[in-house]
């Protein structure tokens, strides 16, 4: 069976996010009352697996091995319900 997964990857809190910082600034200049913009990744993919648990399991493994860098990033994995 094919499962749609979403892997969200975010900078660890203590890691500086320059792109987020400059986006914060630009949004403030545009007149928005915003703060703490942090720009992470949202990765969507399709995985073949026997069941949802195994799909999630594969997703977590891929996140850990490739999609996120544990030195600076955290991740969450979820299955998109059809």
């Amino acid at each position, binding site marked *: 069976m094919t499962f749609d997964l979403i892997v969200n990857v975010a900078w660890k809190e*203590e*890691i*500086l996010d*320059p*792109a987020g910082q*400059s986006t914060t600034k630009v949004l403030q200049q545009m007149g928005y009352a915003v703060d703490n913009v942090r720009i992470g990744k949202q990765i969507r993919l399709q995985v073949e697996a026997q069941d949802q648990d195994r799909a999630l399991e594969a997703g977590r493994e891929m996140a850990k*091995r*490739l*999609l996120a*860098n544990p*030195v*600076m990033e955290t991740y969450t994995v979820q299955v998109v319900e059809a």
Partner: protein
Amino acid sequence: MRVGVISFPGSNCDDDTLNALAALGVEGVPLWYQQTELPPVDRLILPGGFSYGDYLRSGALAAQAPIMASVEQAIATQAMPVLGICNGFQILCERGLLPGALRPNVSGEFLCTWETLRVVSVPQGFVGLKTGDLLRMPIAHHEGAFAVEPGFLSTLFDQGQVFLQYSDPDGQVHALTNPNGSVANIAGISQGSVTGLMPHPERAMAQYLGSVDGRRFLKAWLGEEDQ
């Protein structure tokens, strides 16, 4: 002396690196990322470039390349000297062969400039370099800000793993001499026989290109005293 230079798809400083080795009279052996076994070589260089277009994170996709398992093994079993330049440095960090990671530059932009680098601790095997030496070499990268996990920085310094720092022409290291937002101005580090740096020694091989310090650097890595 035979030095393997590993090309990944998207590597683009591989030829420059082979040329630099040739200029030093050293035999460079081009290697392709899909090779699963290393031919007989004495040393390895992971050259600069945009392996896999720097997609996902610089170096992340190349770190999974088939040849990296043999590189890992050669380091573990024979203490193979391995040098990662720019993208090569990123690949080594992503593979966990060097500590830390390389984040996007603080400006969010690619940056190509000449920098002065101060030697902090001389890595194992380098000949003719000493603490406090200054080298002028160019940088050219988008994701070159070195980062470590919180609390780990002092360990790196204590263990003598911090190799190069961005400094001013007099060797002073401060915030204004930090081109990319690297923690503690770090431009290069080492771990055992593995060394990585963001600057490009292969581009500083002649005065007419701006500096000969890259020649000095590579000779030191090759274990030859520069005359």
